[in-house]
């Protein structure tokens, strides 16, 4: 039982100071996981949910005895969504005895961390650090920038688009598509792949608009909505998250824009509230690896326990896959050595959180699993018990994308130690 994060952090800080003065590393009696994500500032909303998820998982795994005879411990490091700050915090985590770091928010941060882990491991042989990525989806991380030390449990943005377009393929009501995305690497890669895939799968679909707007800087989306409206689009695809998603939908509802929304992050914190506000009942779809109303009993129980504890939904089912697989890999390798654990993880098959088998592809360290399309709106409380953010509305699973329909090639040329 964690009394409070203040206590935990204060103890840690004290320990860190002691270790510095003694000039000795802490005894390796736990498997420390450095959680590096925003815990202050605007990004903290998601970062804190992530930290809670990992704390929940550490308790779950420790209740089963940990791994290789050791207990897990997660330590939160605030990276303020800043790449440079992330590197400082990664250094702190490693100094505090963590050999595993995990991060998810921001492709820029992820790219910096991959680079750092590569260099750190090259320069500090025998002290290798693993970087487990639970949510950064820039495809480049498992393609041109792939690394032996990096594993990704979230489907990358291309895979999600592959799944999404496979779902859209037979939908004949989709005729005119508008793309609106945030102007940074993720939004750019999303729009490019969306164009390519739609063209290949549905050449009849007309892309009537392809918009990039500044990241987290737009306060009034009505001009963009006016443009979408003028284009005559019937479907919008967007990778927007956080306020860029909420504001976009709000402006759409205000202007009475009647289209279907295909999204990546409608389920993110604040997203459901925004959709409910706009009244877009079952018009907003999202692609995720598992929804709260998943019929699998184990997932439902976890969802229930998580909500009881933290009063929020399981936002990161993939983190469950990540941690459970990590424990399995440590047990398999019977070691916490970075290289050995990495080898144990490669090609590992695993029964995923939402049911079905997933696996890590050895070539690029990308995790594959069945994906689902969900639709947000009113729910049948008897069959679908979970609503979101107290809105009364919830996610309804409307399609399953088989693992084979999520498989994409890669350009990774991995160098192995």
């Amino acid at each position: 039982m964690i009394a409070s994060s203040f206590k935990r952090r204060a103890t840690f800080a004290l320990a860190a100071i002691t270790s510095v003065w003694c000039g000795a590393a802490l005894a390796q009696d736990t498997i420390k996981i450095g959680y590096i994500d925003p815990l202050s500032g605007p990004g903290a909303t998601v970062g804190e949910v992530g930290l809670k998820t990992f704390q929940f998982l550490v308790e779950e795994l420790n209740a089963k005895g940990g791994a290789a005879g050791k207990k897990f411990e997660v330590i939160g490091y605030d990276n303020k969504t800043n790449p440079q700050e992330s590197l400082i915090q990664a250094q702190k985590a490693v100094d505090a005895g963590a050999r595993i770091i995990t991060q998810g928010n921001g492709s820029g941060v992820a790219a910096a961390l991959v680079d750092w882990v590569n260099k750190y491991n090259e320069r500090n042989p025998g002290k290798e650090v693993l970087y487990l990525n639970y949510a950064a989806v820039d495809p480049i991380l498992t393609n041109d920038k792939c690394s032996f030390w990096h594993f990704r449990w979230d489907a990358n943005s291309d895979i999600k688009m592959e799944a999404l377009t496979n779902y859209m393929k037979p939908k004949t009501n989709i005729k005119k598509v508008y793309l609106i995305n945030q102007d940074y690497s993720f939004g750019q890669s999303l729009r490019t792949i969306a164009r390519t895939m739609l063209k290949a799968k549905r050449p009849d679909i007309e892309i009537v608009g392809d918009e990039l707007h500044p990241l987290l800087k737009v306060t009034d989306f009505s001009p963009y909505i006016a443009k979408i409206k003028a284009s005559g689009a019937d479907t919008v695809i967007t990778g927007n998250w956080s306020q860029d998603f909420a504001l976009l939908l709000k402006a759409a509802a205000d202007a009475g824009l009647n289209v279907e929304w295909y999204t990546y992050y409608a389920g993110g914190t604040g997203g459901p509230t925004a959709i409910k506000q706009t009244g877009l009942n079952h018009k907003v779809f999202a692609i995720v690896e598992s929804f709260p109303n998943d019929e699998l009993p184990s997932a439902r129980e976890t969802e229930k326990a998580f909500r009881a504890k933290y009063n929020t939904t399981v936002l990161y089912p993939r983190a469950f896959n990540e941690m459970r697989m990590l424990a399995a890999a440590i047990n398999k390798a019977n070691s916490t050595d970075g290289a050995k654990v990495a080898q144990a993880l490669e090609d590992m098959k695993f029964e995923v959180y939402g049911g079905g088998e997933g696996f890590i592809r050895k070539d690029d360290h990308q995790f594959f699993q069945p994906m689902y399309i969900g639709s947000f709106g009113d729910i049948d409380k008897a069959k679908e018990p979970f609503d979101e953010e107290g809105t009364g509305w919830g996610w309804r699973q409307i399609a399953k994308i088989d693992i084979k329909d999520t498989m994409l090639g890669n350009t990774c040329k991995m160098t192995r130690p």
Partner: protein
Amino acid sequence: MGRASSLPLNLWDGATGNWVVSFGTQHFLIKRRGNVLELVLISTLNGVLYGLLLFLMASGLTLIFSMMGVLNFAHASFYMLGAFVGYQISKWAGFWPGLIFAPLIVGGVGMLVERFGLRNVHKNGHVAELLFTFGLAFVMEELVQIVWGKAPVDYRVPALLDFSAFTIFSTNYPAYKLFMLAISLAIFVGLFAMLTRTRVGLIVQAALTHPNMVAHLGHNVPLIFMLVFGVGAGLAAIAGVIAGPALVTQSTMAGLLGPILFVIVVVGGLGSLSGALVASLLIGLLQTFAISSNVSMADLFSFSGFAPQPNTILNDLWRVSVAQIAPILPYLLLVLMLIFRPTGLMGNRES
């Protein structure tokens, strides 16, 4: 001469909804989907609305800056505070009491800040005052996050105004936006009347044009300063209360708008309320229209057949669209204005 003009002449063909771009004798047809007139009308309305919202904040900032010499970095924070207090009241008592009381409460907070903070810093000069408000913005954002959290709060448009007022072609225009427009206009008119018709207004006006004169007026200068700061904060709070339900109410909302306000104050001209109005509308329209334009250099000069090498800086510039640079246009305007007309559009003071 074959080409009369090197500048493209843009013509909108109303019958087909297409734009014709002519270079001398060459004509290029740019096909637009949907109705351009609709886009122009909606953009104008949105631009004016956004501009008026900006003016609600910029007017207070101008007043404070002109009279007290304080560039109030925390001004947008009062806007944020207004939205959150309005939200809190709306949860207890509905939207309308929030509209009345939130600005009063925030105005009171502003007065307290002036009385117990700024006034003590005043003796250390304008830089110290500016830095004080800089720190205050920091602290206010943190406090709001502690009280209301970091996620957006569910601030609703009142049911009374939750319908669409009219439809242009096929776009609904929400009644709430018209209401925002009306409130902003009413406050603008009220502010103007107060400044031209009342005694305090005359003092304020005198101070705007002759900042050193205030001290010689013999009135209770500290009290006037406190009131001006309070009114400025209250005006920002009104903007917050009415913008909160339409936009997102979140602790980051101050940081997004703050720098734009400075741009308005400088572009409009220091110490000029009418300048602030013009600049607010200008920036509101500029940004709104820029967003609705997808044109890039590559489009404009596509006839030339010129295409820069990929992966060069020139190529980046060549392909960027007007919509993408929309958010930096205000700053570009600011820099150009300061270089070519440092007193601003309507200002008469240089600094």
